[in-house]
């Protein structure tokens, strides 16, 4: 048993290192190399070229504003929503659950596109409508701007910030606030002197995680930033490898290095804060849910605001895409528009060989990639939880390394790697790249599943004297299935809509959906884009629902007799 475990551990360390450590090493070496074909020929020229580029100053400044602005917007909004949900008597609280989960299913690139459709300065639907309504000469809003980018990116990162802040808010000991009230602290003072400082670790953790994600974000900067020539670091890299005459992967690697270092540092700080946050958590000894704040006059306006946020995050993108997919060119919804509606866009997309190819590729990567990724995750999670050795600890840290990888940067690292292998320009390059980059998302749910099994397995076999087979059937499988399902679903949806790694690695013949959508957006082919985007949302929903149904069948008892809906 022992030996088998250690063989498994070392095999996994080898595999995971190839996936996560190798691209980093390649990125480092690549940044010092002359060019893709001359790997290892040491030169500092790339660093010098890139860090003396006068455009970098502006790009770095943009990045700073974009990153801090979006992260702050997302965190403040999440804080506000978490407060509303946990501490007030606002109605329809299930909306918060929806808000924190559903937006994760809408691909970022589509979300960004839907805002471009609404608020672009030349023919944004909302802009045109407002112009007509008020007789304005100019479009009132321009989404191709820093504020526009910050708003859209902030909304996209809202769910993740909410998922961190909300539990902290829920376990907050209300008597800390009550005592402030007794000691003459008014509501505002209590908020700023007590509530927010006590929640500070969770707020900071959310803020930092948002920063890391915005730093890695590519969809919003490319769809909304590039048309207005607002470059941030991720689009700067993209430009370096795609738009100049000769793609320079050395320069891209040199600039990617600083993003990677920053990301890893921030994730380290994030881990520090999340570890720290447990310290303040004090569960109220009064047996009931804390007294909620009665919203009196504010109830209706706040509720309306919540509805608007939900609408903006969930309904609006789909609605805009649906509308655009039926009209020949962008126009304000009116009688004329409805008269011009047709299935033309859908027909072109379905008969467009590249779109169909990209759908096929994405489906393959989503389904097969997630399956292989889940399998690897199960093994890694098993070793992390069950084998408590130094080696398994090492395995844990290398498999969570990619948590801090910005897709486009690690894509550059993979590029340096894959050009030396026959995998270059094949679908397998994407396949392994995806698994490497999103491995932590698969491992996390599995480890929690294994942690659960740990106790119950031993208890049930010891106490009940159940046979091994019975224990497997009654305890292990049912406990493992939810973890496998959520790991698989998470990986599959991420693979299916992957953009930032793919823009670097995808080549003719290995197009994927998100990249194809980006191409359509760059060419302004909004109708085709919308049709393809809706097809994308449809398949990704299908995968989530389908796998959850299959997962339910594996649960014994209660779930078995439930008919799939």
């Amino acid at each position, binding site marked *: 048993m022992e030996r088998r475990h250690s063989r498994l551990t070392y095999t996994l360390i080898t595999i995971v290192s190839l996936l996560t450590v190798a691209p980093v090493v390649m990125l480092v070496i690549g940044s010092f190399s002359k060019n893709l074909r001359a790997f290892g020929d040491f030169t500092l020229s790339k660093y010098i070229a890139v860090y003396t580029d006068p455009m970098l100053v502006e790009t770095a400044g943009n990045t700073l504003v974009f990153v801090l602005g979006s992260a702050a917007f997302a965190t403040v909004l999440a804080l506000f929503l978490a407060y509303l949900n946990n501490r007030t008597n606002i109605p329809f609280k299930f909306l918060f659950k929806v808000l924190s989960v559903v937006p994760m299913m809408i691909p970022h690139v589509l979300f960004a596109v839907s805002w471009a459709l609404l608020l672009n300065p030349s023919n944004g639907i909302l802009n045109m409508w407002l112009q007509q309504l008020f007789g304005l000469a100019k479009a009132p809003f321009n989404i191709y701007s820093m504020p526009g980018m910050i708003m859209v990116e902030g909304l996209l990162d809202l769910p993740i910030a909410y998922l961190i802040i909300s539990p902290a808010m829920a376990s907050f*000991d209300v008597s*800390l606030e009550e005592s*402030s009230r*007794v*000691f*003459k602290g*008014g509501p505002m003072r209590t908020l700023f002197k007590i509530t927010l400082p006590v929640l500070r670790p969770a707020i900071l953790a959310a803020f930092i995680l948002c920063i890391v994600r915005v730093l890695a974000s590519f969809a919003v900067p490319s769809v909304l930033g590039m048309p207005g020539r607002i470059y941030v670091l991720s689009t700067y890299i993209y430009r370096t490898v795609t738009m100049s005459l000769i793609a320079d992967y050395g320069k891209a690697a040199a600039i990617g290095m600083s993003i990677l270092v920053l990301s890893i540092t921030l994730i380290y700080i994030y881990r520090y804060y999340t570890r720290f946050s447990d*310290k303040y958590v004090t569960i109220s*000894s009064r047996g009931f849910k804390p007294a909620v704040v009665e919203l009196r006059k504010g109830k209706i306006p706040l509720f309306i605001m919540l509805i608007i946020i939900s609408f903006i995050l969930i309904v609006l993108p789909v609605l805009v895409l649906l509308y655009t997919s039926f009209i020949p060119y962008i126009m304000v919804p009116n009688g004329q528009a409805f008269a011009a509606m047709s299935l033309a866009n859908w027909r072109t997309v379905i008969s467009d060989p590249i779109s169909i190819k990209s759908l096929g590729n994405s489906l393959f990567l989503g389904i097969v990639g997630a399956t292989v990724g889940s399998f690897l995750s199960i093994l890694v999670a098993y070793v992390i939880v069950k084998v408590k050795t130094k080696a398994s600890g090492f395995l844990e840290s290398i498999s969570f390394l990619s948590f801090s990888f910005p897709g486009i940067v690690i894509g550059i690292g993979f590029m340096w790697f894959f050009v030396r292998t026959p995998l270059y320009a094949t679908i397998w390059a994407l396949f392994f790249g995806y698994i490497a980059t999103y491995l932590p998302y698969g491992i996390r749910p599995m480890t929690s599943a294994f942690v659960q099994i740990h106790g119950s397995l031993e208890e049930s076999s010891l106490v009940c004297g159940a046979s091994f087979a019975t224990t497997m059937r009654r305890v292990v499988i049912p406990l493992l299935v939810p973890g496998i399902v959520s790991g698989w679903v998470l990986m599959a949806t991420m693979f299916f809509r992957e953009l930032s790694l793919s823009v670097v690695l995808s080549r003719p013949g290995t197009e994927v959906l998100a990249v194809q959508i980006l191409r359509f957006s760059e060419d302004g082919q909004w109708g085709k884009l919308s049709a393809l985007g809706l097809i994308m949302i449809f398949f990704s929903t299908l995968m989530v629902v389908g796998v959850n149904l299959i997962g339910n069948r594996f649960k014994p008892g209660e779930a078995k007799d439930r008919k799939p809906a």
Partner: protein
Amino acid sequence: MQITITGLKKHYHSEGKTIRALDGVNLTIEANKIFTLLGPSGCGKTTLLRCIVGLETPDEGEIKIGDTIVWSNEKNIYVPTEKRELGMVFQTYAIWPHMNVFNNVAYPLQNMKMPKDEIAKRVAKTLKFVQLEGFENRPATRLSGGQQQRVALARALVAEPKVILFDEPLSNLDAKLREETRKELRMFLGELGITAVYVTHDRVEALALSDMIGVMRAGNIVELGTPKKIYFDADHQFVADFIGRANLIPAKVTEETSEHSLVTTAIGSVVCQKRSFDPSDELTLCIRPEFLDFKPASDAINRITGVVEQMVFVGEVYESEIRVGTELIFAKLDPQTTLKEGDHVTFSMKPEHCLLVSR
């Protein structure tokens, strides 16, 4: 300051049921006394206290602190918590984890916009009073239970409120520390001479600390009185039973003189202190174990004979059960006694210790 509560009602609704946490409480808490709310878990003590500070909104009634109405449903008055000028020690202490001891204690003064040097002086004085000198810079998360309790007390006292409220402030401490802290608290409050409202379900705490006790049951104040009155002279069986161990035997009055009542019980006829009751009241004879006299004079009234059924040595006494007819009488026997289980034993009870209470 005196606190006057009239017709206070607070109902909770959960899972389709209505919980009458406060069911029309009328209560006057005298100024500058220690008043204790005593009652079993869930009887509404915390709810009443929270209504007084304003953390809970009652449904009906009126609360007056001193001459100010702080809550009245009819007159539509609500003075927010921070304007009620009270001090409070929370059950969990609610020490702010992100501040040090100084800032915790200084917080009420900072909210009063007091000058900095004045704050420092007052905090130092208060910390000295609760014997926490030199703890100013200690982070609040690094305090023992007893120290946290004293920080909470200092914070409640620092602004010199006219009324201070306590919600089971000792329940988080271990038995020994609880006893010490109780004594300290008694001393602190005695020195300050302010109105204190103290919530507890521990009868010893209530007896040891209070000038006045209000016993609560199911959202109502059942009885009000000094510790001695509540202990020796309760009107209700519930109160007599709750405040200390007692033998409770159903009784019926058969004869009354000017001073005494004669009752029949399962242990025979007993002469008791006279008390007037409603004729419809069902009565119980209440005798505390410490008042059973096991060396009765031959002409003593209320001489009763029984059989020792069980004796348990617990240190200072034998806790024993004596069978008299169908009743088992709980008694405390001298640890030096020569009695054994199965022995016949005779004891007497003075009429003034035989208390008639209504059921």
